[in-house]
């Protein structure tokens, strides 16, 4: 991974991510108090969750620095997850 950087530098970036995650968490909770309508709330919730997930995967799990091929291990299952859910929900079984 980004071994070019010093311990402190990386620590700093980790801390940034950490605070970002906390803020986003606070945000999702806050958002639920205002009501945009059911689907809208779901969308917002999921989007924020995806953002957080992206941060964790990208920085904490080193996807940013590692061999790009590793990203398949997330994208491929996601594809099948989507097909599964899509089929299940599309026509109500």
């Amino acid at each position, binding site marked *: 991974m980004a071994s070019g950087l010093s311990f402190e530098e990386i620590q700093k970036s980790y801390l940034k991510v950490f605070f970002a995650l906390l803020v986003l968490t606070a945000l999702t909770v806050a958002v639920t108090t205002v009501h945009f309508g059911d689907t809208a709330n779901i969308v917002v919730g999921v989007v924020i969750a995806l953002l957080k997930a992206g941060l964790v995967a990208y920085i904490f799990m080193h996807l940013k620095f590692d061999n790009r091929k590793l990203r398949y291990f997330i994208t491929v299952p996601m594809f099948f997850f989507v*097909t599964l859910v899509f*089929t299940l929900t599309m*026509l*109500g*079984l």
Partner: protein
Amino acid sequence: MDAALHTDQHLHGNGHAHRESFLRHYVFSTDHKMIAKQFMFTAIFFLFVGGAFALFIRWQLAYPGEPIPLIGTLLPSTWVNADGAVTAEWYTQLLTMHGSIMIFAVIIPLLVGTFGNFAIPLMIGADDMAFPFLNMVSFWLFPLAGVIMMAGFFMEGGMAASGWTAYPPLSAIASPGQTLWIVALFLIGFSSILGAVNYITTVLNMRAPGMKLFDMPMTVWAVFVTAIIITIGTPVLASALAMLFMDNFLHTSFFLPENLVVATRDMSRTAGGGQPLLWQHLFWFYSHPAVYIMILPGMGVVSDVLSTFARKPLYGYKAMVFALAAIALLGILVWGHHMFQSGMNPLLGTTFMVSTMVIAVPSAIKTFNWLGTMWRGKMEFTVPMLNAVAFVSMFVIGGLSGIFMASTPVDVFIHDTYFIVGHIHYVLFGGSLFAIFAGLHYWFPKMSGRMFSDRLGKWHFWITFVTFNGTFFPMHILGVGGMMRRIYDPTVYDFLKPLQPMNEFITINAIILGFAQILLVYNFIHSWYRGRPAKRNPWRANTLEWVAPSPPPHGNFDMPIHVYRGPYEYSSPASVQDYLPQTVSPDELAEQRARHEQRLARQNENSRPVETAL
């Protein structure tokens, strides 16, 4: 492992890394070859258990309500009635356990567990799996699960009895045996996931220097792709099982609608609101890919065996690999074809029919490439070859019957009839199991260091081949006649009575088929100790495992491995013999040729005709 250990392995090259205690070596071994053998013997044991169950099933179907000959009266009263005939309850348990055992405790362990473990490291020139310890764990989960699955025998209510597909509500309101079945399957699933992690890592990371992905033999490709399917599919089954367990054990209602009227169980706690079809979707999302898990490694093995004994390069190697990949990808998108009549939206029926038709194409590609491989070959009909050849034509029958079911309107009639049962056995027995026979014989010399008895092998093949068709082909006709699967006594129905003679014919064949399997076991056990010692490369094959000693010592290879070419260079004009191992370096090759030239020259001086020398 250091040089010292290696050298003295040569002194007694029986491949047993001797410094280990009995326990470490035979029981809790982390050596991929030993684990492969453990998988093999356990699975063959289960083949006989599941097979015996099948024979009981067959007896009941041919002679409904008649006592089982010889052993009938000896069986416990929970299984058979007073005069020793199979009871309806036990019949249902039998067919459930037969299916579950054969699929989860025979075919998958043999194809993935045995061949995966034995072949991968040897064929890619590694000296063990990436995670030997994980490997051991993944084996030991399997007999454990087997025991748990069978434990239902000793509980009231008996074993699981809702088919290997375990559709709720039936499975959700069933006896404790069903709960055990769920737990067992969960463990087996976990075991194969661990295995898959191991295979993928090993294949990606531990190939011998010079070996590109496209230098890998089909067997390795097949198991690799299978492992990918397992990583995607099996976890979904696991979560489905988890939910079924909750329904079955904690009275939740993932799969149970409101207010079921059930006598056998107190439903007061069950709230309802669930959806039975949800299980079917999740189950088949795994279990259709699972049927390809059960055929792809077989296809890989057969490709290798065919090419080796046709002494000819595999026809369309790249196409074969892409076909594998295509099957893997599409295979996860067709699960709905098991649910055409399930009450799922007919629109989905249409879409899944199309995807199912499409997925047959890669299988077609493979079939024709196998034919291509044999074209203008110089085939040697050894036992492995015979079984491989049988595989191809039997798989074609099984596959074609799949097309009938893929066509939704036809499936309306043949769904859940013996046509399906015929299909199952043509693909699983005629396909997977023949491939397994081929592979077991092919690698037997490498595994045991001895040759099997060719005569016994051929007897076993021919009897199996003939009685196999005698057993399972008529099942298609039963299906056309409308005979439902999983019924205890067909004679209840007037429209099935005329089919009874065929049922008897099937049973007679099945019994012979069953006992023929004893030949296989006898041949293996006997040859394992008494067979004549095998050379390193008895089949004159190219792939890496044949460079290692037979059997390979702990650490496999006694020389540095470097790969210079693909695995299928048979009859290459470049080489002196009709094969060209992957490890032979260009200069080495040049040397061989030079020596060969000289010999020819000398022979010409002695004015002897060249042919006789060759």
